[in-house]
């Protein structure tokens, strides 16, 4: 982080991942009626955050892109794991949290289809899992960002390679 990255590095998989995480978190929290109450939607350009249908649409879009990125990353890792190295402990924690988010998120998407009836307890548990894992992921990710923790245990290997 000491050397400023060249402009091309701004469009790496990491940046895309961070952007999608931010978008999903922003629109995800928008699923709860808080942005209006806490004046966030009053900031010019943020009015759409108070429209539940818009935030839901964007959350679904962000989730789709994130799923694509995660599938790419997992497939890429599985095929090149020898040259990439083994995951760091934080990668395991983050992957587990991501898996929880994705699973509960997919459950929500199914729940929102017509003709799907789930007991309220399942929905509440799903909510707590989704929300809890999101908060956990945001916390762990901030920690990793601050302290420069990468996804692989060998920091040398983690450096982007020309593949």
């Amino acid at each position, binding site marked *: 982080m000491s050397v400023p990255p060249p402009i091309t590095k701004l469009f790496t998989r990491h940046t895309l991942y961070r952007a999608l995480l931010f978008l999903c978190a922003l629109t995800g929290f928008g*699923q*709860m*009626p*808080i942005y*209006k*109450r*806490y*004046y966030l939607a009053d900031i010019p350009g943020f009015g759409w955050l108070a429209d*539940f*249908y818009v935030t*839901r*649409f964007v*959350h*679904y*879009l962000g*989730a*789709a*892109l994130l*799923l*694509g*990125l*995660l*599938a*790419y*990353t*997992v*497939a*890429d890792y599985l*095929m*090149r794991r020898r040259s990439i190295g083994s995951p760091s402990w934080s990668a395991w924690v983050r992957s587990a949290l991501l898996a929880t988010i994705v699973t509960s998120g*997919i459950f929500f*998407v199914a*729940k*929102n*289809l*017509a*003709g799907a*009836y789930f007991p*309220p*307890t399942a*929905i*509440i548990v799903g*909510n707590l899992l989704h929300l809890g894992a999101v908060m956990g992921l945001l916390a762990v990710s901030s920690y990793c960002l601050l302290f420069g923790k990468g996804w692989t245990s060998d920091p040398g290997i983690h450096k982007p390679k020309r*593949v």
Partner: protein
Amino acid sequence: MSRGSKRPTLSRRAFLKGGLAAAGLVAGAGTANAALTPGDDHLATLIDISRCIGCGECVAACREANRSEYPQPKKPFPKMYPPRAKVADWSDKQAVDDRLTPYNWLYIQQATITVAGEERDLTIPRRCMHCVNPPCVKLCPWGSAKQLENGISRIDSEICLGGSKCNKVCPWDIPQRQTGVGLYLDLLPNFAGNGVMYKCHRCHARVAAGELPACIEACPEDVQTIGPRREIIAAAHELAKAVGGYVYGEAENGGTNTLYVSPVPFETLREAIETGPGQPDLQPVKDTMAQANQLISAMVMAPIAGAAAAIGKFYAATRSSQEEG
């Protein structure tokens, strides 16, 4: 009662006089054959607007039947922050009956219209439409709103935090808030939640016991008919055809379990009714839940494309490294 002869063939005796049990509609009984499309196994109501005389018996019956569930807020209310969070208090205005409130889940909307050159007063019972895919239920971030398999949507006052999201996503402004009751008082009453939301639950307990919803039973004019959704849709069209009328609620918001039949087009009726908070419109409504659901195919395709891209890149890299030797 000359209009009676034009009534649909739907067996009123089965549905009305014998109650739901006689009509074989008690939970499960009517759902033996799997539903082809969502809503097929739902119970729906037909509201024949031209029969309604505006007597208000249904409103009184709803209050009588559901009074025990009405909110009993504790006062003074906890102070809420930020100041934008406003108190919604109907506890001193329980008698209000010209709109929906936490104490009035059904009201009679009035319209003066001209039918065939003749001025006529129409009265329309208004309450929750019980959408086939109800956004109030599906988008409740807390799971306190639920839909029963017979199509009834209801809000659990034990769990509801009163955030009013259900009201904001409801195309008809149905759920109404009362501050000072419910679970939020035990959590962070100053910063999150604001009471409990109330609306028609189509007398779910009575229906489960094979009885009719109170408002249907009390109506002296048999304005409402209840039955399986497909039959009610057919009956609504038959009635509309017989009287040259119009149907509302079949496709609105992707389909509801409340079908109104009006002698005049709903565009005309709309202009004659008073709308506002707690006073629902009769506007066209597109399928609100469908928009985001359309993205599901993208959610299925994106991971496939992502994995394929990684595999493609891997083989391209292997080949070029082999070529390089």
